[in-house]
């Protein structure tokens, strides 16, 4: 695995176009899903998706192959979203970093259906998608990384640039929120 990552790092350093094409193909679903859960907006997820790969091209030399490529990829994507939020001042960065202290990562105004609801309900109006709408974005993020991406706790901490204790706390709360949302309780 480490050898594979090292080879990947060397390819990225060379800005190997074939390798980038292959990576875009390989990770498109996972990255888009992560961005969609993070931004709650299909359009923004698309923008960030493209921008993430441009960053991968530009900063490929910074990937050293010591960690999983997807962790590095998700971290780039997340940083782009945070930079965007900072620049738009839609949400305080503190609230994003420490959601227990403030509003969770959502873009929708109060009393309106959230963009995630609109996006997801267009695809499937019932079931898990409708339930996920009731789980705060910041918990959805860790749930995706843990239970869909199967990342380890330390890897998630790396993506979030947050302490392990924060990751665990969000996962426990997220799991509780997900269970509540799926079974009709309040998230």
């Amino acid at each position, binding site marked *: 695995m480490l050898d594979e990552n090292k080879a990947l790092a060397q390819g990225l350093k060379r*800005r190997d*176009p074939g390798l*980038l*094409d292959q990576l*875009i*193909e390989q990770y*498109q*679903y996972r990255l*888009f*899903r992560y961005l*969609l859960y993070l931004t709650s907006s*299909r*359009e*923004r997820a*698309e*923008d960030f*998706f*493209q*921008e993430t*790969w*441009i960053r991968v*091209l*530009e900063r490929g030399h910074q990937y050293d192959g010591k960690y999983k490529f997807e962790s590095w990829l998700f971290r780039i994507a997340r940083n782009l979203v945070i*930079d*965007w939020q900072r*620049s*738009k001042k839609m949400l305080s960065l503190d609230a994003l970093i420490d959601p227990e202290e403030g509003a969770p990562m959502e873009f929708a105004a109060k009393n309106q259906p959230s963009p995630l609801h609109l996006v997801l309900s267009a*695809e499937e109006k019932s*079931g*898990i*998608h409708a*339930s*996920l709408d009731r789980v705060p974005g910041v918990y959805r993020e860790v*749930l995706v990384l*843990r*239970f*869909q991406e199967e990342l380890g*706790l330390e890897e998630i901490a790396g993506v979030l640039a947050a302490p392990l204790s924060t990751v*665990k706390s969000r*996962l*426990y709360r997220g*799991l*509780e929120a*997900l*269970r509540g*949302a*799926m*079974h009709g309780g309040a998230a």
Partner: protein
Amino acid sequence: MIDNLHARAEKLISQERVEGISQAEGDWLAEHLRQCESCSQIAKQTHEALRAFRGAAIALPRGLAERTRFRVQLRAQELREREPKRSLLWVICAISWALGIATAPYVWQAIQWIGERTGAPRLVLEFGFGLWWAIPALFAAAIVILENVRQANERDWSGR
């Protein structure tokens, strides 16, 4: 005491998914779930919620990968075109510094001559000499900064 048992079971149900539990804890939990209907229900709900979450599918926008590849290729081309310019900039700087070193005694003599004529203090002359040395570096830094600002403006895609 009984409440503690249920709280422990509920904690272990989540912990099992998040960070894992020991064999002994797993055995205790299994035994408790066999006896406790409400905790068993929570375990079932957790299992179902995660199964549904893992199976949740998202539709990818059509042509997303192709559009991204196209943008990445354009950017790669742009970077490739820019690389020789950067190299040229550093070559010019290197030549400039080399010439600066070679001509330094003459330049200092010239500055001293100007100093004698104008009566400028030695500190001003030394500062002038230092500035003359720094000009290539300042010039290169200005170009790099301008280039970075231009790139940042180009990629100000956050308008949406």
